[in-house]
């Protein structure tokens, strides 16, 4: 019997798990996929917003501003990457400047610090590639950028270090209530008993809720966002996050420098019917180019290395929905977490545990808040590199030449605290295959390293999900029959 089972290992579930692992309680995280954080957390803008945009006196406003500050703490403890870019919200004419004034007031009311207006001259000095039709901007120095997926894996790793458990490929199909506790059934029939359940299942949160109650007050209305990724060589072309004036549809199409040097362009914002329709479209990609024209006409589109789409778990409820079920005690919903969910995530975890659950278990005496960052070999000094290669010669074998990733880093990713044995799982952890050639050169080597390290035949190594092998059939083996 677990004290807490968290359904979903996205940024919300993983940070809740880590927060709970500070207390003397048992914690299990379930994810239906073959890896952690495979959906919204892996496909978003990666921005830690300042909190200028959410409506005043909402949970979104409060937890966004609080979450932004908590990331500084996470940076130290979990060793996550943070790029302190700051942001400009830009206006082009009187009407937009008026909207900027409103945004300024809202930001002040939300408690965002150090905000100020800057002139056209200051904008173009800081960002020479921006359009000269921009007349004024609101500068938001507290805006930052992170690698959201790494936040999730570092949180899960640290939770595991402090006693939590994680199970992948664990698709919850039903939940029974037994004498005030819960029994969760997985797709494979396995039952899991727990006193409390935290529903942090993103776009599936209304579906999970429906397993235990009929009148869940919200419905997920999935919203798709499409993006372009520019090669790392675009680094420094844009130094700040650039927002247009927000509209009812959202924050608009943005320019976002990324922690690894890439630049992200997007997202579009489109309501869709299917919760898993994460596809890019000709219309969407056209829209990105069109909308960005008002920000800059000097965007190097020839440097696009990848496109992707993410699904945001927007809902019919106007705010984040973070509440205990009205009828099922010990069942907690963390639902409708769309933007600024990434920013708010660390504050959501604390809010849930301290204000909603009001946990009364004692704090662990030996809680270790620190997560050691895996070695990123190419960033080390020459002396350090030589020393490490002497200890582990596989640091000498460069596998991904675009991102300069060595064989040992791939081995570390396979066997890490939340290791993974798939091509994309390794890409997410070690960045092998994230560069210019998108794995064209190194994918075959990565498959061989995974097979060797996990004692599996080559034809069992999956792309990402279960049953997705890249090498499907060996050609030179004759049937024994």
């Amino acid at each position, binding site marked *: 019997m677990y004290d807490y089972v968290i359904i979903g290992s996205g940024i919300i579930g993983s940070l809740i798990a880590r927060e709970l692992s500070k207390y003397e309680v048992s914690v299990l995280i379930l994810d239906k996929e073959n890896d952690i954080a495979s959906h919204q957390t892996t496909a978003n803008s990666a921005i830690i917003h300042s909190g200028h945009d959410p409506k005043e006196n909402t949970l979104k406003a409060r937890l966004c501003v609080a979450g932004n500050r908590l990331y500084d703490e996470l940076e130290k403890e979990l060793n996550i990457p943070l790029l302190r870019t700051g942001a400009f919200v830009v206006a082009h004419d009187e009407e937009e400047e008026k909207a900027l004034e409103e945004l300024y007031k809202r930001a002040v009311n939300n408690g965002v610090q150090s905000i100020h207006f800057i002139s056209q001259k200051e904008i173009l000095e800081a960002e020479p590639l921006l359009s000269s039709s921009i007349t004024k901007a609101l500068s938001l120095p507290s805006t930052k950028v992170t690698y959201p997926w790494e936040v999730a894996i570092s949180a899960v790793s640290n939770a595991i270090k402090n006693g939590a458990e994680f199970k992948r490929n664990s698709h919850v199909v039903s939940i029974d209530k037994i004498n005030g506790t819960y029994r969760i059934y997985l797709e494979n029939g396995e039952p899991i008993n727990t006193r409390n359940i935290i529903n942090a299942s993103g776009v599936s949160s209304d579906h999970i809720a429906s397993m235990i109650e009929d009148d869940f007050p919200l419905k997920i209305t999935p919203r798709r966002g499409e993006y*372009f*990724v520019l090669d790392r*060589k675009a680094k420094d072309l844009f130094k700040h996050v650039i927002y247009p004036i927000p509209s009812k549809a959202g924050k608009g199409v943005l320019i976002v420098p990324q922690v690894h040097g890439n630049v992200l362009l997007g997202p579009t914002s489109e309501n869709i019917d299917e919760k*898993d*329709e*994460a*596809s*890019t*479209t*000709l219309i*969407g*990609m056209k829209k990105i180019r069109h909308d960005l024209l008002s920000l800059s006409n000097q965007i190097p589109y020839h440097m*696009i*290395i*990848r*496109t*992707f789409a993410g699904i945001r778990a927007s809902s019919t409820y106007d705010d984040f929905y973070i509440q205990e079920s009205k009828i099922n005690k010990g069942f907690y919903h963390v639902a409708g977490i769309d933007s600024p969910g990434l920013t708010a995530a660390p504050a959501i975890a604390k809010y849930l545990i301290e204000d909603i659950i009001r946990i009364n278990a004692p704090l662990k005496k030996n809680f270790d808040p620190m997560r050691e960052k895996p070695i990123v070999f*190419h960033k080390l000094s*020459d002396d350090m*590199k*030589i020393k490490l*290669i*002497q200890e582990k*010669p*596989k640091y*000498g*074998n*460069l596998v991904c*030449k*675009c991102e*300069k990733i*060595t*064989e040992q880093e791939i081995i570390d990713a396979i066997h890490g605290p939340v290791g993974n044995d798939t091509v994309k799982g390794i890409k997410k952890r070690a960045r092998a295959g994230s560069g*210019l*050639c*998108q794995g*064209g*050169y190194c*994918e*075959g080597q990565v498959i061989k390293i995974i097979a060797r390290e996990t004692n599996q035949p*080559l*034809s069992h190594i*999956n*792309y*990402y*999900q*279960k*049953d*997705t092998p*890249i*090498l*499907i*059939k*060996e*050609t*030179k083996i004759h049937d024994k029959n």
Partner: protein
Amino acid sequence: MIKTDLVIIGGGAAGLSAALAASDANLNILIIERELILGGILNQCIHNGFGLHMFKEELTGPEYAMRYIDELQHKNIEVLLGTTVIDITKPDDFMLTVTSEKDGYQHITSRSVIIASGCYERTRGAIQIPGERPKGIMPAGSAQRYLNMDGYLVGKNIFILGSGDIGLIMARRMTLEGAKVLGVAEIMPYSNGLTRNIVQCLDDFDIPLFLSHTITDIKGKDVLEKITIQKVNERFEPIEGTEREFEVDTLLLSIGLIPDVTLFDSLKMEKSDITKSAIVNQHLMSSVDGLFICGNALHVHDLVDWVSEEGEKAGKYAKAYILSDEKQSREHLKVNPGAKIRYVVPQLIDYSHLNEPVTLSFRTTEKMIAGTFKVYQNNQVIMTKKAKYIAPAEMENIILQPDDFISFDPITVILEEAL
């Protein structure tokens, strides 16, 4: 620290012939190859058709490579296998940082360097094919390597985007291994592969080629299930109502090759936006003194024979550079691509050292049955060459003698259609 006269980066077709051409009893030459065997991409090209020009024989890729590798054994040439160059700088001589599992981190100094690092395949991201992102989509060359070197098929029902030669070769190869190739789509109104490959790899196997078509949707959550192709107009925009769906588990991309010179950014050599590689003179030397480039790392060739020829040239001139032992000043004139010509290599001619014939290699922007290539200087035609069956997929060349030039002003290559 290893000290040498000439480092050749890449032990494929270009690097091997460069090494042989440069070899000399008095020179220390070092080939650095990241794979554990020499031969480069030739090792995965197990079909025949290589060497028709070089050896007047039809060889397979590995056989072709072996001709050079065998010859290498008798020369004063060293080879570092399983070793990757991760940085080059040029404080005075070249300083290379290399890494391998066997020898770890090492520095090498060299008086001259030849880049023969080949090319990489253009990806789905680079051309932004819309749709979902399931497994089963990969560059045709990756599938070729998996099949021919590792012995694994990547799928059973295949569609191929792009009619580049690797895609065509793979259409035949996958068919022979029992896979079903449902078609090849090419966005241009003509094929981007060699005519002989269209005939021998598609026509002979009844594989349809959809010209002026591209992929406009990809379906499949975890594994590829279906693709949609559409006809495009002259502006390459999809035409509504022309959608056709194919149920496939694999999509191979043969949409272009790009010279792989990303490791050499720290050298700040001048680059061409069209070839995506160095700007060179007729000696294949880049703007960095002593740095030569050849083969698919310089521009993508249609036949390996031409790669070898270019490697040989780079080897010969690198050797002359090292042996000349004096700093030379160079005066360049520009070689411009004119009407219906996409690019010309070399982009510069060093007329202060113009004492041998100069070969201009180039590609056209249009397909035509017959035409005339003309080279202009000071508004005068200094050379003409007639050609038949001209296509962007095939590399053309013109040889200019030193006394063909009438001045030191730029020259322009153009193509005129024969009426």
